[in-house]
Structures are given as structure tokens and as C-alpha cells.
């Protein structure tokens, strides 16, 4: 089947960013063709100023190399402008006369510099500042000419002037306004800026309007005349008086334009097949001239091009920075202030620092900073969020570091975090996203936050941070997660009650549980079903029925799902010990199935990544190894160090101890993953201190530690007991794990379980009560007895359909 054709006109920042976003969402949906008038791949236009200033080279600012287009199967036409869009025949016509058909069209033609309609504008040596060609022309001119006039004291003009000056020219900036950057700064900050630019060697003519550019007989620029009749001599004129959305093509094609191509919140033009993004568009009456809005637009346009159809662009609030090295200024929002608004001003002209914050209705609505922009991002976020700042008021001017720390040790971590800092690494959720959801959607509990933001909903290690954020954001409204909360929305019963009923009433399958405990849903949900499944299995081993449909995909197919829907295969390698034959088979499998990535895991074994689901069973058969259970709420690995057999420090055979433990615990399901380690001496190379059960050998025996884990919140394992023999290591650690299996709530790691019941309780049950310890140990062995390796079962034909897709002969 041939794919629909997407044509992008404009090989610039907005167009290509949209393509990148689109490739993330629907990599294979379109045949993509890009036309760009410039003879270059996409580069970072905002870095032209550092190139002009000699701080960077063109190669350094290229964003997408020609190879990138090829790798993504994008047809790229550089140096080819589109001259016509034929919307009836759905083709675009290029300047070489060629025609290309489209199904969807993306206009990203950017903007064109405004050229003042004054005499002399076409003379040699009159330039604008928009692309790399202009930049190169200026760099070249600076080599042979001495003086330059830049018309326009805005961002672009000042960056051009600064660059030309650094290239050795004497530069005069002519500006109509009465202070520099009059659209971005108030008069006080503008004057400070002027002072420091004068000190650097620039000359300014403010409040001056240019009447004509004067040329010589050869048609070259030689001077500029102002409306008051005065003149100055110059070899070069750069016009930087503004930009205009480039709508030529769209207008000619009959698309509605009004200071830009008019688009909806979906970035769609009046022709539904045509989208537009970037500086060429007008959205809700605004045409933007900075990149941040373009990136937001790109996300939304891509969402619609990928046929997802729910993204919405609602406009952007802008902030400004000037990229002149050594000058720090920032402004955002309504920084000029008005009669209804209040201003807080800090002015230190001698120190070159000026700060103005504009506040209205207890909200920050504008900021203008000069000389000290450290807190710019913080102010910008307060402004965008429209947060009530009455509580911060007294400290606002002194910046973020002066507020937030309520003096509670645990909280300072969160308040020190910026909104853009990531809280949940698994789902990429930032602090700002969470705070926003809490405020806007009225969230009160960690569960609410999980549901609305996905934070803390995968591995859960950031739950503590999320709790702190809730606390900081809600203050006294925060409700600590009740320790006895219901399993999920399907029931009011707690984990403890579900477990208790299963045990007391001898419930053996899901239907019985849901019925007996009055579940509100017919068959639970993705939260309670796996929990109930575990409680059934752990309470009634060999009696209850495991329900594969109640297991997360990884435990159902015995491999780890990856983001592209392929799987990883990690065979068991007890204690991290392997041999030539296993390695040879792994290598053969890697060749036979063209495995994209072979990786040594942190659990001392080998991961084969990128296996297709339908190949899993064959891969397992060819490997001839057992499942490493690297995908389950189950025993994972027992990490070991070299130990006494080889290591000069080793006191016991830690490697063999690890192998024995891993053999004993094979196929063990548990409330959460369980990791062990055995080190041969207190140097602890196997990192026993951060494992659920960590064993450290000493001259006189073995020390056992419990309740450790790595992660965002690293938990150091606590000393449990010391034993003499290898058999005791097995019995004590087995009994501890069985207690955890019987009593912990689903998805509690050992550290959470111990925190709930207390280490003394665990010690009393396992260390001090020998009879109980032996009983626990026996129950563990009974549960594990006769369990078969899940891979072997599937090689023998179990759950065959799971792995075979249905083919339709149409």
C-alpha cells in the first residue's frame, strides 16, 4: 500500500521540528518531502548571532545533517523554492518547474525582513539579517569595510551591531525609539543596556528616523540621511527593523491570511489539507517571532498530522533574552506595568543591576531584569502558571533560593527543584507538571497524582517526592495517603482485608474473590487484578489457579516489553557465572535473530533486546537456558563477587553461595521484585548493602542484611543477623523472604514492608523464633517445589496462541 504524501515547504526550525515530532508519533505514516529555499540543511537560526560574532561556526549550528534526512527516509530538496501551490490538483510547483503531489501540506515558510521603503534601499551594501547568507555577507564585508550603520535597536539589530563590532567595524545603531529594546525593556533597563554597550564601543543615535540611504556613482552605499537633515558616512547598512510573516505563497493559493497565514488551534489553515507552523502563521491574532512558540506549535501540528487529533495550541507567553555575550537581560509578560498594577523595583545602577517585577491581583504579570537574571526561569514560571504569590511576596525580589525552605529537612529537596526538573524518571514527569495538575485539577492524594500525571505510577520510587510536592503545594490541605487505603477504585477493601479473606475463606480464584468481597466491577481493573492474583498464589500455592490474563504483559509472556513493542530476553546466569557453551549459544541466537542489542545487565547477566514476540519461544529454545525472571515481581538475580576461590581478600566462597541461593529461589513470585547479593568480604564488591537480602562473608561466617534497594531513593540494607554456615544463610534468608511474601502488600519492596511492621518484629519472627523460622522456610520450599521453568513450559507448547499472531488472507 502506498503511503500518504506529506510535503513540507520551508526547511527551517518550525517545519523540521514538526517533522521530528511527527516521526516520534507515527514514524511510518507518511512519505515526507521537504523543500527549502536555502541551500543548507536545517540550522539553528537563533545561533546566527554567535556565528556573526565569531563565537561559533556554521557547522556547529546545523540541527539536522543531510544524513539525518536520509536516515529518516525524507526526500530533501535544498535550494529549491516552491513558487505555487495548486490546491485543486494538490501539487506544489518548484522554481525549476517540477511538480510534486501531496495529500497533506505543511507550510513553514518563516518570515521575511522588513525593508524600509526609502530611497537607496537597493544599493550594494544594504543588507538584512535573516539567514546564513546575510551572515556570511556581513562577515565578508567586515573584512574590507570600516564603518557600518545598523537601523533598528531591537534584539536583531543589537546582535548584528555587536557582531560587526567584534569583527572590527565601527558601528552606529540608529533607533527610532527613545531607548534600546523599547519593546522588551522599560526605560531604566534600556538605559543601563545602552551604557554598557557604549562602554563596549558601539555608538547610538536614538529617536532618529532614517530618510534615505545615499549611494555613490558605483551604486555602493556611502552614507545615511536622517529626517532632520543630518547625514553620516558609512560603508554598510544593515536593516533590522522587523519581520513580516512570509505569506506570499499562501496568499497566491487563496488561503486566508491576515498578518500571517490564519490557523486554528489545530494549526490547520482554511484548507483542511494544509497546516502551517512557525513565524509564517497568525494564531488568534498573533504572529510570533521567537522559537519557543514554534516548538509548541510543532507538537500540536504533529499530533494532528499523525491522525491523533486531540492536540490544541492555545498561544504562548513569551520571554526575551539578548544573546550578546556578557550582557544578561530578561523580560517577560507585561513588564511596563500600568496604573492598576504594582511594581517592585530593585535598582543598583552602580552595580549594573536592575530588577522590576509587576504584580496585579496577587499574581506576577511581568518581569524585567538587567544584570542579574539568575531567577529568570523561576519568575517566568510564576508568571506562566499565574500562581498566587501573596505568600512569596516578601521574598520575591530576592529569588527562588530565598523562599520555599520551611525548615523541614525532608522538604528542602523538593522546594529546591525547578519546575522543569524531572520527578518521575520512568514517565518523564516534571515537578511543574505535577504542581500544575495539583492546582488546576484539585488533586489531594498521591493516587490522584498518579492517575492524572502518571508520576509515581511505574516503578514508584518517586512516590516520596510526589508526597512532598503535594505537601508543599497544598500546605495544610494535604492528606497523607492513609496507610489502610483501598486496593483500588473497584473496592473499599484494603490489601490486608483482601489477603485475610482469601486465607480465611479459602478463596481460590478471582471470581470468588470479587464475588465474596463485593467488588464494584465485574472483573477488576489493571491495578487490583495483579494484586489479587499474587495473593491467591502466595496464600494457596499448588491449589489456587494462576490467571495469566491478570498478569502484566511481562509476566504473561515471560519477557520484558520495550517501548517499541519488542521484548528483551534475559536468561538465568546463576551468580553471574557462565561458560563458553552458553556464550556460544547466546552468540548464535544473536546472529540468527539479528538481535539489535546485546547488553550486560547490572544483575550480572546478558540481555538480548529487541526480540519480536513471535520469535520469543524459538529464541528460548535455541538458547537452551532458563528464564532469568528479569521481568517479574519475582526473584531477579543474586549478584556475587569473586570470593575466596580466587580473590586474595575473600573469606568465603561467595560465588557458590550466590549460585545456591539463586537455585533455591528459582521461579519465586513475590510482592515486588527481589534482588540478592553475596560478597566475599566486607569490601562488598557485590553491593550487598542495597539489596533486599544482602550477604557479606566474614572470617567467622556470614552477615545478613535486609531491606535495601537502589533507585531514586536509595535505601541501605539494615543489619539482620550473623550466621555460621551456608545452610543457615539459606534458611534465614529464605524464612525472611517467605515472611515478606506472606505479609507484604502487593508492590511493596522489602524496605516498605519492614518500615510498616518494624525490623524488630521481623527479627522476632525469623531470628529469635527458631521453630517459626523453620516453618516459614518449609512453606517457602513447599511453594517453590515443582514449579517449572516458564520458558521450558512454553517451548513444550504451553500458551502457544499468546505468541502467534493471526494472519488474514484477504
Amino acid at each position: 500500500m502506498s503511503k500518504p504524501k506529506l510535503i513540507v515547504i520551508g526547511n527551517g526550525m518550525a517545519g523540521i521540528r514538526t517533522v521530528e515530532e511527527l516521526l516520534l508519533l507515527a514514524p511510518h505514516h507518511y512519505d515526507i518531502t521537504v523543500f527549502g529555499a536555502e541551500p543548507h540543511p536545517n540550522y539553528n537560526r537563533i545561533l546566527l548571532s554567535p556565528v556573526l560574532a565569531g563565537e561559533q561556526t556554521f557547522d556547529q549550528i546545523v540541527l539536522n545533517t543531510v544524513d539525518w534526512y536520509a536516515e529518516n527516509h525524507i526526500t530533501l530538496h535544498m535550494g529549491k523554492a516552491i513558487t505555487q501551490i495548486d490546491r485543486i490538483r494538490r501539487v506544489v510547483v518548484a522554481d525549476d518547474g517540477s511538480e510534486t503531489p501531496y495529500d497533506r501540506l505543511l507550510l513553514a515558510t518563516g518570515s521575511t525582513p522588513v525593508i524600509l521603503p526609502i530611497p537607496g534601499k537597493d544599493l550594494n551594501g544594504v543588507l538584512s539579517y535573516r539567514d546564513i547568507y546575510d551572515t556570511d555577507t556581513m562577515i565578508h564585508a567586515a573584512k574590507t569595510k570600516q564603518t557600518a550603520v545598523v537601523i533598528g535597536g531591537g534584539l536583531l539589530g543589537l546582535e548584528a551591531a555587536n557582531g560587526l563590532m567584534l569583527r572590527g567595524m565601527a558601528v552606529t545603531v540608529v533607533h527610532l525609539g527613545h531607548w534600546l529594546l523599547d519593546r522588551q525593556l522599560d526605560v531604566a533597563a534600556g538605559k543601563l543596556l545602552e551604557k554598557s554597550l557604549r562602554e563596549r564601543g558601539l555608538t547610538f543615535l536614538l529617536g532618529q528616523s532614517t530618510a534615505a540611504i545615499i549611494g555613490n556613482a558605483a551604486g555602493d552605499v556611502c552614507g545615511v540621511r536622517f529626517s532632520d537633515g543630518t547625514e553620516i558616512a558609512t560603508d554598510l547598512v544593515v536593516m533590522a527593523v522587523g519581520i513580516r510573516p512570509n505569506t506570499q505563497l499562501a496568499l497566491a493559493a487563496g488561503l486566508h491570511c491576515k498578518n500571517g497565514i490564519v490557523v486554528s488551534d489545530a494549526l490547520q489553515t482554511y484548507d483542511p489539507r494544509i497546516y502551517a507552523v512557525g513565524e509564517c502563521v497568525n494564531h488568534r491574532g498573533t504572529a510570533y517571532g521567537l522559537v519557543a512558540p514554534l516548538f509548541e506549535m510543532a507538537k500540536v501540528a504533529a499530533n494532528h498530522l499523525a491522525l491523533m487529533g486531540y492536540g490544541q495550541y492555545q498561544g504562548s507567553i513569551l520571554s526575551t533574552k539578548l544573546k550578546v555575550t556578557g550582557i544578561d537581560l530578561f523580560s517577560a509578560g507585561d513588564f511596563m506595568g500600568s496604573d492598576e498594577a504594582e511594581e517592585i523595583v530593585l535598582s543598583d545602577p552602580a552595580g549594573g543591576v536592575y530588577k522590576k517585577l509587576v504584580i496585579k491581583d496577587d499574581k506576577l504579570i511581568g518581569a524585567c531584569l538587567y544584570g542579574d537574571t539568575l531567577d529568570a526561569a523561576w519568575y517566568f514560571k510564576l508568571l506562566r502558571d499565574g500562581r498566587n504569590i501573596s505568600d512569596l511576596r516578601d521574598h520575591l525580589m530576592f529569588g527562588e533560593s530565598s523562599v520555599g525552605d520551611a525548615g523541614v529537612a525532608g522538604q528542602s529537596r523538593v522546594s529546591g527543584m525547578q519546575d522543569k526538573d524531572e520527578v518521575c524518571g520512568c514517565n518523564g514527569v516534571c515537578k511543574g507538571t505535577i504542581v500544575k495538575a495539583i492546582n488546576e485539577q484539585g488533586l489531594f492524594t498521591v493516587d490522584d497524582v498518579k492517575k492524572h500525571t502518571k508520576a509515581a505510577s511505574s516503578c514508584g520510587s518517586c512516590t516520596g517526592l510526589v508526597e512532598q510536592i503535594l505537601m508543599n503545594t497544598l500546605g495544610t490541605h494535604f492528606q497523607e495517603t492513609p496507610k489502610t487505603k483501598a486496593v483500588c477504585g473497584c473496592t473499599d477493601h484494603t490489601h490486608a482485608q483482601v489477603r485475610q479473606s482469601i486465607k480465611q475463606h479459602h478463596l481460590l480464584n478471582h471470581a470468588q474473590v470479587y464475588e465474596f468481597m463485593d467488588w464494584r466491577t465485574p472483573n477488576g481493573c489493571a491495578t487490583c487484578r495483579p494484586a489479587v492474583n499474587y495473593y491467591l498464589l502466595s496464600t494457596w500455592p499448588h491449589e489456587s489457579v494462576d490467571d495469566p490474563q491478570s498478569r502484566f504483559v511481562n509476566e504473561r509472556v515471560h519477557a520484558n516489553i520495550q517501548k517499541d513493542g519488542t521484548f528483551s530476553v534475559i536468561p538465568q546466569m546463576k551468580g553471574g557465572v557462565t561458560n563458553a557453551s552458553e556464550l556460544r549459544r547466546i552468540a548464535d541466537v544473536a546472529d540468527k535473530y539479528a538481535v539489535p542489542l546485546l547488553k550486560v545487565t547490572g544483575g550480572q547477566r546478558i540481555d538480548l533486546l529487541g526480540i519480536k514476540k513471535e520469535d520469543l519461544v524459538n529464541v528460548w529454545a535455541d538458547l537452551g537456558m532458563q528464564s532469568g525472571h528479569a521481568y517479574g515481581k519475582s526473584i531477579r538475580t543474586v549478584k556475587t563477587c569473586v570470593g575466596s576461590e580466587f580473590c586474595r581478600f575473600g573469606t568465603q566462597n561467595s560465588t557458590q553461595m550466590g549460585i545456591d541461593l539463586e537455585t533455591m529461589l528459582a521461579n519465586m513470585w513475590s510482592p515486588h521484585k527481589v534482588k540478592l547479593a553475596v560478597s566475599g568480604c566486607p569490601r562488598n564488591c557485590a553491593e550487598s548493602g542495597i539489596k533486599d537480602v544482602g550477604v557479606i562473608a566474614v572470617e567467622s561466617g556470614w552477615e545478613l542484611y535486609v531491606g535495601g534497594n537502589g533507585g531514586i531513593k536509595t535505601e541501605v540494607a539494615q543489619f539482620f543477623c550473623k550466621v555460621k554456615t551456608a545452610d543457615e544463610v539459606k534458611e534465614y534468608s529464605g524464612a525472611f523472604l517467605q515472611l515478606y511474601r506472606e505479609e507484604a502488600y502487593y508492590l511493596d519492596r522489602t524496605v516498605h514492608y519492614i518500615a510498616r511492621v518494624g525490623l524488630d518484629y521481623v527479627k522476632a519472627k525469623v531470628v529469635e523464633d527458631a521453630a517459626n523460622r523453620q516453618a516459614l522456610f518449609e512453606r517457602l520450599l513447599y511453594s517453590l517445589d515443582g514449579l517449572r521453568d516458564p520458558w521450558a513450559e512454553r517451548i513444550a507448547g504451553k500458551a502457544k496462541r499468546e505468541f502467534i499472531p493471526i494472519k488474514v488472507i484477504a
Partner: protein
Amino acid sequence: MNMKANPSWISVCHIDEIPMLGSRVVEHPSGNIAVFRTANDTVFALLDHCPHKGGPLSQGIVHGESVTCPLHSWNIDLKTGQARAPDQGCARRFPSKLEEGQVFLSL
């Protein structure tokens, strides 16, 4: 030609070949299709592509008339393909029917 006015049903498998509260993948050149079976033997078909980041919905946990995506746990309504609140998005759905135990899709 309007496909909807004249649906052409294709037989894909017997219902017993789909696990109850589970799914099978039907391979199709323009994207795999996930066929789901609920507890009361209703079948639904969605493009096997989560509206969030394209996760394979066929690999998710089926409950009631929803499936939970295996990648980031969005809940998708099997009947409409719509993501349940607070998430937003829609997976393409295909008409399906069950006749004498045989599952038919209209593609």
C-alpha cells in the same frame, strides 16, 4: 467507494482462540489490529496502537470493556477506542461481530 455503507466482513478466527479477558493480534499491512474478548464474550477490534505513544494495546490487561495499555497504563474504552479521562486520545476502531462462535472484522 464507501467502505462503511457496504462492510465486507472477514472471518479471522474462532472466539475460543482468543483468551477470555485477553486479546490476539491480527496482522494487517496497514497496521496490526488487536481483537479483544471480554468476560461475557463480546469482541472488539482496535488498531494495535495506543493513542499515547503507540504502545501495543493487545498486550494490555483487559477489564470490563477497557484495556490498560502496557506501556504507560492509559485506559482505552474498547467500544469507542477513546482514552478514558484524564487522558485524551483515540485508537482507531474496526467493526467486529460474532456469528456462531466465529469472529468477523470489517477492515
